[in-house]
């Protein structure tokens, strides 16, 4: 076989794998537990506001909620605290603040 043919076949195989993975992602999404009504119901019923991603410290468990242990308690997402802050940057405060103003400054 010509080398170019081998390269085209290799590329085609890769594309097919990528296409299959794409189809797989759709199938897997459609039955993924994250879409289940039950989990949304839990969030709603228990009034949960944060994901369990980092339980290593109290201030990283609920980055959107201030509490007595937060290093900076000025705003949801003000989570600067070493070493978390070096991994998770603070959110864009400006756009957060503006959102409220724009909507209320109307007629």
């Amino acid at each position: 076989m010509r080398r170019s043919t081998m390269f085209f076949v290799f590329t085609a195989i890769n594309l097919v794998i990528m296409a299959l993975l794409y189809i797989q992602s759709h199938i897997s999404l459609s039955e993924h537990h994250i879409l289940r009504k039950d989990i949304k119901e839990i969030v709603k019923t228990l009034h949960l506001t944060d994901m369990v991603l980092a339980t290593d410290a109290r201030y990283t468990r609920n980055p959107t909620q201030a509490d007595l242990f937060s290093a900076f308690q000025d705003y949801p997402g003000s989570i600067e605290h070493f070493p978390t802050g070096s991994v998770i940057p603070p959110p864009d405060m400006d756009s957060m603040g503006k959102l409220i103003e724009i909507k209320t400054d109307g007629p």
Partner: protein
Amino acid sequence: MALEKHINILDYTLQSLLRRKFKNIGIIMVFTLVIFTVSSIIFLSYSLRQEAHLLLKNSPEIVVQKMRAGRHELISTWLMTEIRGIPGVSDVEPRYWGYYYDSGVKANYTILGIGASGLENNKVVSGRMPSPHEKNVAAIGRGIADVRVIKKDLGSILYLQAADNKWMNFNIVGIFESDSGIMTADLIVISKEDFKALVSMPDDTATDLAVHVSNEAEIPTVARKIKEQFPDSRPILRDEIIRTYDAVFGWRSGLIITLFMGALIAFIILAWDKATGLSAEEKQEIGILKAIGWETSDVLEMKFWEGLVISLTSFMCGIILAYIHIFFMGASLLAPALKGWSVIYPEFRLAPFIDFYQIAILMSLTVVPYIASTIIPSWKASITDPDIVMRG
């Protein structure tokens, strides 16, 4: 057919690449690793972000906290009546929650006191939830059940130390199964009375208030009115919560910088090395090809194929491996970085959301510059007169 010429050149390019097998395989491996790492991070952060969007849409529209001298404090429940009076507010509910540090397993739990049970027919909850006034029963997350030295299950007893130094025992009547782990892994849900007793919370107070607003558009207005009426309160909007997670998982986040700097620099050095000069051998080869009758455009086409073969191969392999890593293997290589010091963490079975925009950007930031860095130095060599091979 007019394509034959290009295929001939591609044939020669591949032959050429095989001549320097080890060097080129090395480049492909490093390149694949770079693509793999970046696209793993893209897949992971985008998937988490989408999950956050989906799930946190169900959070309370506004959470009202009380501030005293800039610090968070328990909020009086009488505020609820006042807030209910604000037009647009459909309901206000108190939230009772806090943290509990278990020195035995060095883990933090989130404790939630509930006033109404609900979730009777929920399929991810085994058993049941504590009813509002029931004493000494709890529903816990699967994460806690698994992390305890003696694994807990339905019917076991959980002991928690109360603020007054007494131990309270809780019969485990419900478990949040791991499918809901991303939201519930570290939860302990008990009745509101038990919660108040556990943390010695005064009557008529709550941790904060969940305010429900039925009309999405009125949320900021309601938040502003709350802030005006109670200057010592702090309303947190659901939008802000979701945005916080957007920022947390933003793909430009510190995750990429910290985890990836090393590989990125190595790759830049590699590309730089390629871009700044051809080896004498490569220069001579270009000279020979030109002398025996290749046009400048043929030489450049060869170099284009060379860049394309290497970068496209690496890109496709990197993407495929990253997908397998993140969505089939639960991000096993990146998860430790996310978990940090955490003792409790949810099982990562991520939803395979794919952001084609970011993948396209990644492609244009890697494949295109690589091809350019292959072609540009050759371009200079290929426009010079071929008699250099006779004099050299």
